[in-house]
Each structure stands twice: as structure tokens, then as C-alpha cells.
């Protein structure tokens, strides 16, 4: 009986321990490398193909909290010892959780590369998950969110995200909302981590002056204990286009400028007209000489800046991205600027660009494209983006050839299909009474909704 009891106890201990796995080694397909001969530091990215889209309903921010918590100590080191050990090497380990990826980054001076890689592996494979670290971690995340309440631009885009992606997991930024964060439990964190840290769910990328072979061998040895297996797939997203114009105001008194944004759903990373739309957008709103800047800043001096592009909420991913037109005019010019921006948008969606504008965009973008390859880290991040989202990564020759082929009618067709200015979300930060008067002058807006606390869900 005693022996049976001991056997059961042993089996129970084994079951509760961290996952046991066959030895893992990094194969060539799972290692991207860019050589940088003059680099005095090495950067290693450990990329998980999962992100906040995998947060369970009601627990947005879980993935972010989970992976931030691995920086709170390992089985061998307390949080303070762990931080000191990393930083003493002239290194930094950081975590960035996105919608469909989580990237753990090591950056270290080359003199201490091997020790830093070992420490990275310890961080990833042996996180402590001490329950008493949970509350301070959540407090920190909440404090950062609280601080964002002073940042009108953050609130503006948080609200835009919520409205454009309403009803989908994309409406929640990866850091989550305070209420959801408070409800996350320690067991959820632990479970989430081991569910997604799986060999088939990760790949490595690195840039260094150290050779590819040497670096890959170093990483393979350090990460031999990586849990094997697959992680759950991310949920499918069904995006719903906006119907009609909606105007939201985040009330703030005493601001000297009125920040506003108007936006709508965009396109995914591999969208067939992506290159046409991005090329055209350069001349409409994505350059200092763009139509938007020329009209609103150069000619009128109403605002310091007016920008439009498809990247404000995130790069286009495997699922649809978003378009946003953003400006921050002086308060006394808010009405003029907003109404003019609407007018510009309507004209653009109807007529596209002029020939001069298109040629300008094409020429400028073709000539500046080499900058995509300038730094080893830039090239690497584009390759990661290509792998995660299917975003095309053209060579210079291919890019120039494709851009050369874009015609005015291509632009008109693509813009007409994409941009529906009668169905946009407007968000502004400022005095609700003043902004209501502006909204009344915009066709199709029947009511203004006040968002008292954009950080509340």
C-alpha cells in the first residue's frame, strides 16, 4: 500500500511538472538570419505565432500579462536577480505581444553573447511564475494604462479601434482593459504560457556580426529543452464594414488643440490592391508634400500636421487592417479642418489622384525603396512580417516594376472599392458642445456619442 501510495505521488509530481519533451533543435527553416558586419550588438527574436487574438473572451490582456510575467524571475533567480543578471551583461530582454504574434527580444553587446543567450533560454524555459508576483505585475500594467488617460492621442486611437473592429477580438488592444486585467488569475497565466510555448509555434530570427552557424548552434544548445508540440490556432475573424457615419467625442476641457481621427476598415497584408492603395495614399496623406498636408497645413496653417495611412492601428495583418486620417488643429480651426478633411476624403474616394500626384508617388517610392533593405534589423523584420502575415517582400527590381505598372485607372478603381467616406468612424477629443456643432455640419451624422472613459470596457 505504501509503495502504491509512493508510486501515485511520484506520478502526480511528474504530471504537475513543466512539460517533458523530446530534445528540440532549431532547423534552418525556423532560423532567419541577417549578417551585420559592423554591429557591436546582437539581436535575437524568439517569435511565437500567437498573440492577443488567443485571449479568452472577457480576459483581454491575458497573453500580454502572461508573457510579461516571464520577466519577473526564473526558477533559479528572483525577479531582482534576473533583471540584474541580464543588465549586467549589457543586455536587454523585452516582450512585445501583438495580435497574432509575440516576440521576445534579446539585445546584447557581442562580448557577452553566449551568456546572454543562456539567460534568454532560462527566461523562456524556466519562468518562475511566482504567485506573489502576479499582483505587482497587474498593478504595473494597470498603472501604464492609467497613465494613458493623459494621452489624448492614445485615447483617440483606442476608441477608433474599438469602433472599427467592434464585435471582434481586434477591438481590444493587446494590453487589454483594466477591468479584464484585474480578473486574470495566476493559474490562467501559467496555463496560457505552456499552451502556447511549443516548438511548432516558434521560430527564431537574429542579426549579428557573429556567424549564422555559430549563432544557430548557440541557440539550439540553449533551447534544447523547448517543449515540443503544437499550439491552438487563432480564431477566425469576421470583420464587418462600417455602415453610415458615426461621430464619437471624448470630452476634454481646456485643450488648445482638437485631435481628431476618421477611419474605416482597410485591407489585409496580402490584399491584391495593397500596393496600388499604398502608392496612391503616399500622395494623398502619407508624405509631407501630400494633398492633406498641403491643404491643411501649408496653405491654411490650421494644423501642424495632417496624415493619412493604413498603419495607424497596426500594419495590415492576415486579417483586415484599418485606414485612418489624423490631424490635430488648433481648437479655433477644428471645425474648418474637420470639414475640409471630409471634403478631401470624399474627393479622393471619388476621383483618386491626378496624374502629377500619381507620378510623384511612384517616383518617390521607387527611389526610396532601397531603404527597406538598409539595416539588417529592417530586413529581418520584413521577413518576419512576410512569414507571419503573408505580406509580400519584393526585391528592389520587382517593386519598381510593379509600381511602374500602376495607372490612374488602377488607382481610381482600387480607391473606389476601398474607401467609403459615407461610412466612416469619426473620433475627436475636445469640448462636446463645440464638436456637436461640427458634427451637425457633416452629412449623414445623426447623433454624437460621448465616450466618457475610453479605458473602460
Amino acid at each position: 500500500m505504501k509503495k502504491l501510495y509512493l508510486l501515485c505521488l511520484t506520478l502526480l509530481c511528474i504530471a504537475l511538472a513543466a512539460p517533458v519533451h523530446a530534445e528540440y533543435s532549431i532547423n534552418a527553416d525556423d532560423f532567419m538570419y541577417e549578417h551585420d558586419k559592423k554591429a557591436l550588438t546582437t539581436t535575437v527574436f524568439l517569435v511565437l505565432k500567437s498573440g492577443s487574438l488567443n485571449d479568452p473572451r472577457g480576459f483581454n490582456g491575458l497573453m500580454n500579462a502572461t508573457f510579461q510575467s516571464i520577466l519577473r524571475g526564473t526558477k533559479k533567480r528572483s525577479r531582482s536577480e534576473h533583471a540584474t543578471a541580464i543588465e549586467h551583461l549589457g543586455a536587454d530582454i523585452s516582450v512585445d505581444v501583438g495580435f497574432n504574434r509575440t516576440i521576445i527580444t534579446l539585445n546584447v553587446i557581442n562580448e557577452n553573447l553566449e551568456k546572454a543567450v543562456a539567460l534568454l533560454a532560462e527566461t523562456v524555459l524556466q519562468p518562475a511564475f511566482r504567485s506573489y508576483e502576479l499582483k505587482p505585475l497587474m498593478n504595473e500594467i494597470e498603472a501604464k494604462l492609467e497613465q494613458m488617460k493623459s494621452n489624448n492621442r492614445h485615447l483617440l486611437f483606442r476608441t477608433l479601434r474599438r469602433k472599427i473592429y467592434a464585435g471582434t477580438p481586434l477591438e481590444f488592444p493587446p494590453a487589454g482593459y483594466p477591468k479584464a486585467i484585474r480578473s486574470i488569475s495566476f493559474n490562467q497565466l501559467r496555463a496560457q504560457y505552456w499552451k502556447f510555448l511549443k516548438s511548432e509555434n516558434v521560430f527564431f530570427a537574429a542579426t549579428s556580426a557573429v556567424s549564422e552557424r555559430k549563432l544557430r548552434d548557440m541557440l539550439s544548445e540553449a533551447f534544447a529543452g523547448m517543449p515540443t508540440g503544437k499550439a491552438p490556432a487563432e480564431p477566425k475573424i469576421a470583420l464587418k464594414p462600417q455602415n453610415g457615419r458615426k461621430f464619437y467625442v471624448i470630452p476634454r476641457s481646456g485643450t488648445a488643440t482638437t485631435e481628431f481621427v476618421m477611419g474605416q476598415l482597410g485591407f489585409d497584408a496580402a490584399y491584391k490592391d495593397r500596393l496600388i492603395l499604398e502608392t496612391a495614399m503616399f500622395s494623398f496623406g502619407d508624405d509631407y508634400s501630400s494633398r492633406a498636408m498641403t491643404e491643411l497645413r501649408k496653405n491654411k496653417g490650421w494644423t501642424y500636421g495632417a496624415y493619412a495611412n493604413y498603419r495607424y492601428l497596426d500594419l495590415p495583418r492576415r486579417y483586415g487592417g484599418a485606414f485612418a486620417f489624423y490631424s490635430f488643429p488648433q481648437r479655433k480651426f477644428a471645425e474648418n479642418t474637420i470639414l475640409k478633411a471630409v471634403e478631401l476624403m470624399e474627393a479622393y474616394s471619388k476621383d483618386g489622384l491626378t496624374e502629377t500626384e500619381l507620378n510623384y508617388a511612384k517616383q518617390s517610392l521607387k527611389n526610396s525603396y532601397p531603404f527597406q533593405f538598409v539595416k539588417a534589423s529592417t530586413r529581418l523584420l520584413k521577413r518576419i512580417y512576410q512569414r507571419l502575415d503573408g505580406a509580400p517582400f519584393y526585391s528592389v527590381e520587382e517593386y519598381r516594376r510593379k509600381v511602374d505598372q500602376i495607372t490612374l485607372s488602377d488607382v481610381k478603381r482600387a480607391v473606389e472599392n476601398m474607401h467609403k467616406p459615407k461610412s466612416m468612424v469619426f473620433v475627436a477629443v475636445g469640448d462636446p458642445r463645440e464638436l456637436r456643432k461640427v458634427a451637425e455640419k457633416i452629412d449623414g451624422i445623426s447623433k454624437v456619442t460621448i465616450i466618457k472613459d475610453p479605458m473602460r470596457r
Partner: protein
Amino acid sequence: MPRILIILTFLFLTLTACSTSQTKENYSKINETTLGNGLVVHEYRLANGMKLLLVPDDSAPVFTYQVWFPVGAAAEKMDKRLNYTGLAHLFEHMMFRGTQKHPDGAFDQQLTLAGGVGMNATTWIDRTNYYQSLPRESLELVFELEADRMVNLALDEKLFNTERGAVFGELKMGDDNPSRFMSKLLWRTAFRVHPYRYSTIGTKEELERMTLADAQYFYKTYYAPNNATLILIGDIDVNESLKLAHKYYGSIPFQTVPRPQAPIEPPQRELRRVVETHQQARNQMVRIGFHAPAINHEDIPTLEVIASILATGEGSTFKKVLVDSGLTSDASAWVYTVKYPSLFVVNTNIKRGVSRSAVESKIFTELEKLKQGKVTQLQLERAINQMLLSEYNTISSNRGLANMMGEALMSSDDYMKYFDILARAKKVSVEDISRVAKKYFKRSNATVAVLVPPKGR
């Protein structure tokens, strides 16, 4: 026949000698320095006094081109004819609004068409800089455009007023931002006499008073080749660059530039405190400034190390004592490395419900520990290695390296200054820290600026 040959040979040799000596007169080599990443800085000076720092780097077919003028907010305030702040910055805007040869908009458009990226400029207390990055084929174009606007700007009343409008917008945007407002508050309270007390962007009243004639005077007085440094880094050939520099800048005449001596700020004898309410603040912000020496002072490396010990990374003092303990949502520390004595700053955002005096008390307690030499060797090494990591990352890009050299040159007359500071920082001892902390971290030397949210928030 032979006589003719002799005469022709003599003529040929004479002409060659003349052209060589003519070339020698146009520029002179000053120095050559090899950096830690293997790049070489070639320092030259044109006959008209313009400095050139040329750094070939063929790792990508692009270059960064920056022009630096050692004139900023401090200089305009000290100029008896002007006695403003804000004009240097407003003028920086005007530099993009056209010359006699290239009308308004042409500068940006031509460079953008040529593939230019990152075209912009900044003005600060001691300097103004203009910068862009381009593909290597566009080198001559940027020389031509930059030299042209150094001397041929077409100052236009209408455009001047338009840009003034844009600057008003920028001013208001800054005032809406609690952190930027806080910075102004600190400097104008810490300094009673020195022009560092004035904000670079100026005030509404000063901006309203500025005239086109003021701008014209400023331009003619301070934008001289002997008051300019060109920093060129990337896929360039030194000889070709020198020829282009001579071709486009060589004929611009030297001129006398005023060099007023800044008034010496009298020593502060007691703690200064200022508290203001900010409409957009969500929680209390505290920023403490201690008077600190100018960049060339021997104590600067130690102050940099102290800033790193206090606030760089998860293992830093303030992170543990203020953030992890739940008192603040963040904490940072840095020392300004500028031309005249300035400030060492500690900054923090206090969490709601936490007493400000408790936070201030903690800060001063930690500074007291530094005075007592309570710093471990591990802390010291950690801080220095983090500084190394930061510097290595900065110089990994053309633009980062150019910025570093430019700032150093403007503040200290030595473009290698930051490398020198780091080299000295590596030798800093615990005794140095104690000595320097005792010297500067006295309450009588401190200015405490506080922003509080409006009552009821």
C-alpha cells in the same frame, strides 16, 4: 620640336601645380578618427570655414546628410537685436518654404522624388539641425539644394505668417501635453538669469511680435558656412564629397558671427518649488532638477553613470524603490549634456492615492545613499554595460551616429565627445559617485516642479 615639347611640358606642369594648390586651398584635412565599429571619420574644413565630417560606409547604397548650426533658443535670446525665443525655431520652418531658385515646396518634392526619407529639422537650446537620408545617386542633388537654402532663401511675408500659424499649433499641442509643459516649468523655475530658462518654441506673445525683418536678420547673421558643419555618413566617396562641397558651398563667403557670452546663472541657495494644475494631467507628476555642469566638465561621465544606476532598466534603483513598490507608474533620470551648465533631472508619475511627499522623500533618500557611497560594484558594472549597449545601438545606424556626433560637436566642439564620456564612464569608481553626488544632489541645489490634475479628478 624638342623645345616645343619642353615648353608644353613646362606649361602642363605649371597648370597642374596651380590646380593642385588651388585644390589644397579649398579645403584642408583636419583629422581622421577610427570608431569602435571600424568606420572612419574624415574631418575637413573648407576655406570659408565650413566643417565637414565624412564617414564612408558601403554596407547599404544610401547616405545620411545633416547640416548643423550652433544657434538655438539661447543665442537668439542673447542677441540684443532680437531678444526673442522662438525665432530660431520658426526660422527652421521657413527653411522649407522656398529659395529664389527652388520655390516653396520644391525642396521637399525634389528630395522625396529622389527617394529621400526622414527629411526634417529640429531646433533646441544651443543648435539647429537639418537632415535627410537618400539613395547614393542623389548626393549631388542634396548638396545643391542644401547649399542653396543656406544662402538664397526667399523669405515671404505670406508664408512666414502661415508658418507662424503652424507653430502656434505646435505650441498649443505642447501645452496640452503634461510632460512637455512640465519641462518648460522646470527650466523656467530652475534658471533665473541664463537663457536656458526660455522655451525653444517661444511664447505666444513673442511669436506674434516676430517680423519678417527679424527672420531676415537672423538668417543673414547666423546661417554662414563658418557657422555650419556638414555630417555625411553612408555610401560616399570622400574625394567626390569634397569636390561637391567645394562646388556648392565653397563660394559662400565667410562672415563674422556674433558669439555673445551667456550670463552666468548665480548659484542657487535654497530649494525652489513650483506647483501648477494642468487640465490634461490625470495624476501628479514630479520633476526634480539639480543644477549640473556643462558637457565638457569632468563630472559629466560620473553623472551619466549615476543616471544609469538610478533609472536604466529593471534592475535600477528607482524601478525597485518607486515603481515596484507601487508608489509611481514610472521613474526616469538623466543629465543634459549641453554647452552651458544645465540640469540633472529625476522624473516620475505618482500613482493616485500616493502621497507626493512620500515619493519625494524616497528620491532624496536614494540620492543620500549615493552620497554615502552605498553603491555595489555590481550596480556600477550594470550601469556602465547598459550605457555601452545604448551607445552601440545608437551608432548602428547612419542617422544615429550622425546625431550623436552632431550633438556632441554643437555642445562641446568635439564630435567624439560622447565616445570620450563613455570611455571615462568605464573608469568611474564608487568614490567618484559619492563625491559627485555630494556636490550636486543638495536640496539647496534642487528645483521641484509639480503638476497636479484639476480638483475633483
